[in-house]
């Protein structure tokens, strides 16, 4: 647990180092070419670029702990006085992203386990090979390729779903689910393959061990051997790969959100990067990194819990 917090601390330093390395003409890039030296200086003072990096880092972290992610640069320079706080921009979008990623995970994890067990049970059969080829193809394809193929077939040729996953606050739960059907399906395709392959490999790896041989000799059915004897020992690698893939979901979600113009945090970050709106980029990156680290930590904890030998170290 302490390690996770330490990592998070280091990560926050790295992300905030970002601001230090800013090229000098940054204020100009935001304010436009016609900016006078006075406006540039005023802008730099306003967003705090004229103070020392260490001070800025601690201000940033301090604000972060109070839930204040700072203020978007894109609005800081505007004269209208309309300011947008980063936290305000992130929060509703983070909920949207969690909704999408959560839906994908809820479908993908059981499906991957089921397919993996089935492939291990009927290994080297036609079913196994077909699942293998399909999963290899979906691992190798870029996410946007899968997404557009799905749009092509499920939204344009056969208009079952909608291609734009736009979500408005007043929508009912079912409408929301319907709107995110295609992005969810894309994410499921992307992450199921690897989890399924790992489940299969972990189970097959165990099938050669003597205790499996024993249960086979005593007459247990193949399905029973896998579910009752092999699976409990295969949990550690499987859970690890599940956590890794959920962490991967965090990244995959960026591209999928852009394809379907889904108002999530990934799209916010891509927009901010192209506008070079650093506080927003920092905030988003920190949220992503935090999720990623937490999931990895969770994987370690589950691995320890699932293995009695690690739970009670000698």
């Amino acid at each position, binding site marked *: 647990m302490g390690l996770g917090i330490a*990592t998070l601390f*280091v*990560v926050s330093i*790295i*992300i905030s180092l*970002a601001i230090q*390395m*800013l*090229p000098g003409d940054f204020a100009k890039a935001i304010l436009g070419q016609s900016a006078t030296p006075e406006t540039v200086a005023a802008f730099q003072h306003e967003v705090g670029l004229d103070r020392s990096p260490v001070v800025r880092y601690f201000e940033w972290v301090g604000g972060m702990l109070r839930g204040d992610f700072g203020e978007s640069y894109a609005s800081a320079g505007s004269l209208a006085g309309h300011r947008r706080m980063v936290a305000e921009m992130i929060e509703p979008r983070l909920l949207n992203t969690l909704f999408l990623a959560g839906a994908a995970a809820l479908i993908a994890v059981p499906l991957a386990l089921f397919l993996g067990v089935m492939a291990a049970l009927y290994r080297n059969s036609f079913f196994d090979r077909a699942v293998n080829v399909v999963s*290899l*193809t979906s*691992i*190798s*394809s*870029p*996410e*946007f*390729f899968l997404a*557009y*193929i799905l*749009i*092509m077939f499920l*939204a*344009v*040729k056969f208009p079952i779903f909608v*291609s734009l996953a736009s979500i408005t606050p007043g929508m009912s739960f079912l409408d929301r689910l319907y709107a995110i059907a295609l992005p969810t399906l894309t994410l499921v395709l992307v992450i199921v393959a690897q989890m399924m392959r790992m489940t299969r490999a972990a189970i097959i790896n165990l099938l050669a061990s003597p205790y499996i041989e024993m249960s086979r000799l005593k007459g247990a059915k193949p399905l029973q051997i896998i579910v009752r004897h092999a699976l409990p020992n295969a949990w550690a690698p499987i859970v690890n790969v599940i956590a890794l893939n959920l*962490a*991967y979901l*965090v*990244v995959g979600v*960026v*591209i999928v959100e*852009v*394809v379907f113009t889904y108002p999530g945090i990934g799209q916010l*970050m*891509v927009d*901010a*990067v*192209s506008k*070079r709106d*650093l506080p927003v*980029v*920092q905030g*988003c*990156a920190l949220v*992503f*990194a935090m999720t*990623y*680290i937490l999931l*990895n930590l969770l994987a370690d904890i589950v691995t320890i819990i699932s293995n009695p030998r690690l739970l009670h170290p000698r």
Partner: protein
Amino acid sequence: MTDNAQTPPENILVAPVEAPIRRRGKATRLWRNLRKAPASAWFGLIVIAIYVITAVFAPLLAPHSETELVGGAFEPWGGQFILGTDQLGRDMLSRMIYGARNSVGIAFMTTMLSFVMGSALGLAAAISGRWIDQVLSRSVDVLMSIPQLIFALVLLSILGSSITNLILIIAVLDSTRVFRLSRSVAQGVVVMDYVEAARLRGEKLPWIMRREILPNIMAPLVAEFGLRFCFVFLTISALSFLGLGIQPPTADWGSMVRDNAALITYGDVTPLLPAGAIALLTVAMNFVVDWFLHKTSGLRE
């Protein structure tokens, strides 16, 4: 002990004389291996060869230049433009062909760079151990604790997206994975007697790296090169697709998908072509790596 220490120098003296004979043996062995290769590996090799040829001879194969405006926007397939034109009226086929050169070339350069950095540092860490290993490994741990695409996005937003920046950023981020692999396989080799002998002979770090360790860890590194290439290729096309990677007017498959995506809603498959080209190369590479891994592990048994 004296015997052991003397044997390696003898081998090195003999090696150059034997080299021509051994090389021919290698070529025949390679051919024999290829003939026994499964259909999927053949498919992969042929696809990769086609991509390489397209990339090298792009200017000869393409009917138009990659930036030239030759017609109206979004012209349909057939006629003068085999695959139609893109959103500005550039020839789609020519851009696909040049895209092979740009996308694959840039991904290849990035992977090379990341391998040179990653394996050199990985081997150095494995050989020297002590604090060098600690410092390098811990910094890699930190770099790896941030998801790669997110990290790349942050760095791109700071440094701005040019092709040089893109190559450097992805290469550095990706070399962490190469570092981990080369360090862990090299650690198994470092403890061997012949490495000890080379050390006692007083060989320097680069010599031990190149002559003693590298030949022994080549197989996993080559396989990893294939996989990392796929990964780098996908990352760069993802960034280009987001509009933050390779910038227009350079033809690149990722950004071509983005620019022509509007056509999808009219049921036109054109935008899928560059995306399909990316997927096909990655699948082909995976097939070849699978076969290679199977072969090298099979030989060991």
